[in-house]
Structures are given as structure tokens and as C-alpha cells.
């Protein structure tokens, strides 16, 4: 016999009230990152040189700039979700765990904003 109320069962959100949200976001970003990562690695490898002008021109091309922003968002979000799980597994004092998760979240968010800003700046100025 289930001890859960019918309402709790249909909602399916569990004790943390977010259900499988974390798991699902990790999978969705993983799926998006498969083509994005392969594109990024091969595109960088195929650049004719690594000088400043070549890189700026590559980043500024609309197709590349859009995919770069997508890579930055999906990549840093996926990275944050992974780091959060690692912290939850290995950092035991509650205050340290919560502090590190919050700090890594703020860090990933700021890094993503900075990177997106720079990509757009290069795209619009060149």
C-alpha cells in the first residue's frame, strides 16, 4: 500500500519539489552539446591560422556567433549541473556544500554572461 497521497502521486515532484528537472536539463543540454562540441572542435581545428584577425573574423560571422552563444549557454549550464552533483556527493558539511553550489552557480552565470557579451561585441563591431 502506498503511503503517498493521490495528489503527491500525480504531481510526481518528490521531496525536493522539482521532480526530475535536474536530470532532464542535464540530458537536454547533453543532447545539444553533442553537435555543438563537434562543430566547435572541427571549426577551430580547420581555421587557416591562429592569428588575431582570423579569429575575430571567424567569431564575428553570424552563423559562428549564434552557435558560439548556444555552446556557451548549454556548456556552462551542463557544467554547472555536473559540478553541483559532484559537490552534493563529496562535500558533506551542509554549509560548505550549499556555499560551494551557490558560488559555482554565480560563477558559471557570470562567466556565461561575460562570454556571450564578448561574442556579441565582436560580432557587431566587425
Amino acid at each position, binding site marked *: 500500500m502506498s503511503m503517498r497521497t493521490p495528489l503527491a502521486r500525480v504531481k510526481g515532484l518528490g521531496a525536493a519539489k522539482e521532480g526530475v528537472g535536474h536530470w532532464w536539463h542535464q*540530458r537536454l543540454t*547533453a*543532447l545539444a*552539446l*553533442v553537435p555543438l*562540441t*563537434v562543430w566547435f*572542435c*572541427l571549426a*577551430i*581545428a*580547420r581555421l587557416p591560422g*591562429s*592569428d*588575431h584577425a582570423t*579569429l*575575430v573574423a571567424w*567569431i564575428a560571422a553570424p552563423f559562428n556567433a549564434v552557435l558560439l552563444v548556444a555552446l*556557451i549557454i548549454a*556548456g*556552462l549550464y551542463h*557544467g554547472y549541473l*555536473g*559540478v553541483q552533483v*559532484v559537490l552534493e556527493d563529496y562535500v558533506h558539511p551542509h554549509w560548505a556544500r550549499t556555499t560551494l553550489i551557490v558560488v559555482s552557480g554565480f560563477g558559471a552565470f557570470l*562567466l556565461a554572461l*561575460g*562570454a556571450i557579451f*564578448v*561574442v556579441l*561585441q*565582436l560580432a557587431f563591431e566587425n
Partner: protein
Amino acid sequence: MAYEDERPLSPHLQVYRLPLTAVVSIIHRLTGLVIVLGAVLLIVVLFSVAAGPQSYATAQAALDSWIGRLLLIGLTLALYFHLCNGVRHLFWDIGYGFELETVDRTALATAVGALVLTSATWLLALL
């Protein structure tokens, strides 16, 4: 004193040989953390590009040194390993590939795939 009965023992962690799947699982997590550090590095390089040719020249010199090269190749390998094993995880998530034999074979395929993709990418970059 010898053990006289055949009761199973729980694994003794200092003498227990981890199965291939466990090793791959640990490497998956480690490469994930390595990629986070690599992403920070690449974003710093991106910032240097935006800051102008002079600051980018500094970053480029660091990346072109042998230690910079080694770091980039290591990062590529970590990235492709995590990607291949991630695809393996996605197949598990939709319910495929759980048989012990399959699981070992895909673990090996992950390692081989990562090496092949890393070599291909760097050949493309350096040739």
C-alpha cells in the same frame, strides 16, 4: 586462518580490481571537471581576443608553448571521452545497452572513439 566456507566477501577496496565499467564511470566524472576548467581557460582566451591583438598575442604564446599544447591536447581528449561516454549514457537513458557484454564493449568503444576523434582533430589542425 583459511576461509573454509564459500560465502561471498564484500570487496576489499585496497585489493579489489575495479571493473572496466567502474573505471570508465570515474573517468567520466573526472573528465567532466577537467572540461569545466578547460572551458574557463577558453573563455579567458576569448576575453583576450576581445581585449585586442596585444593581449591575444600573450595568450597565443602561452597556448603555443609545449605545455600549452599539451594542455589543449589533453583537454580535447577529455572532451571527446566525455562526449562519447555521454552518448553511451543517453542510450542507457532510453533503455538500450544494459547487457554486461554490451556495457563492456561500449566502454572500450568510448576509449577508442575518444582517441580516434582527438587524433583526427589534431591532424586537421596541424596539417
